[in-house]
């Protein structure tokens, strides 16, 4: 049933955005921003469930919770960076969009450093 809400919202917002874009593009951008945020709201409820399931699986497989936390953080950063980047690209500001996505990528690299370090450490311990 969820998909019907998402599709309906998207189509309504899309047509209204087109209507507004001719005269006043600023309202079209704000409308697409609002529609994007609302659709992501609907999606986020499902993602919270997925995150809990992942948490349980990690505990059962006694994987260190730290790594799962990092994975969730990376997904969140990518989620937001992509959201902002697409809205900015729609508004025609592709340079700002690419800067936002660049920032997101750098934050993800910073977040992933502990994992890379752990992998290298386990590798050296195996080989050494």
């Amino acid at each position, binding site marked *: 049933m969820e998909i019907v809400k998402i599709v309906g919202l998207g189509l309504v917002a899309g047509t209204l955005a087109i209507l*507004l874009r001719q005269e006043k593009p600023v309202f079209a951008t*704000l409308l697409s921003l609002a529609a994007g945020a609302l659709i992501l709201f609907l999606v*986020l409820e499902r993602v919270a469930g997925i995150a809990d399931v992942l948490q349980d699986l990690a505990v059962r497989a006694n994987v260190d919770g730290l790594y799962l936390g990092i994975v969730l953080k990376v997904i969140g950063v990518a989620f937001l960076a992509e959201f902002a980047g697409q809205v900015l690209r729609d508004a025609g500001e592709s340079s700002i969009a690419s800067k936002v996505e660049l920032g997101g990528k750098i934050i993800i690299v910073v977040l992933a450093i502990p994992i890379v370090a752990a992998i290298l450490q386990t590798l050296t311990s195996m080989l050494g």
Partner: protein
Amino acid sequence: MLNVDLIFKVAGIGIVVTILYTVLKQAGKEEHSYLVALVGVVVVLMLVVRVVSDLFETVKTVFRL
């Protein structure tokens, strides 16, 4: 279904402001028309910012950022 109302509210304000803008411009009142557009953008921005900040809060809690 709060969310569809927001979409219609934003679109409604946008359409009203566009009409007022063109009407005032035809009537020769350039500066008034621009002020109306500005007020419209501010009102819509207030609405949208609240939704986007709620989204950011939810993302923060879900992904434990």
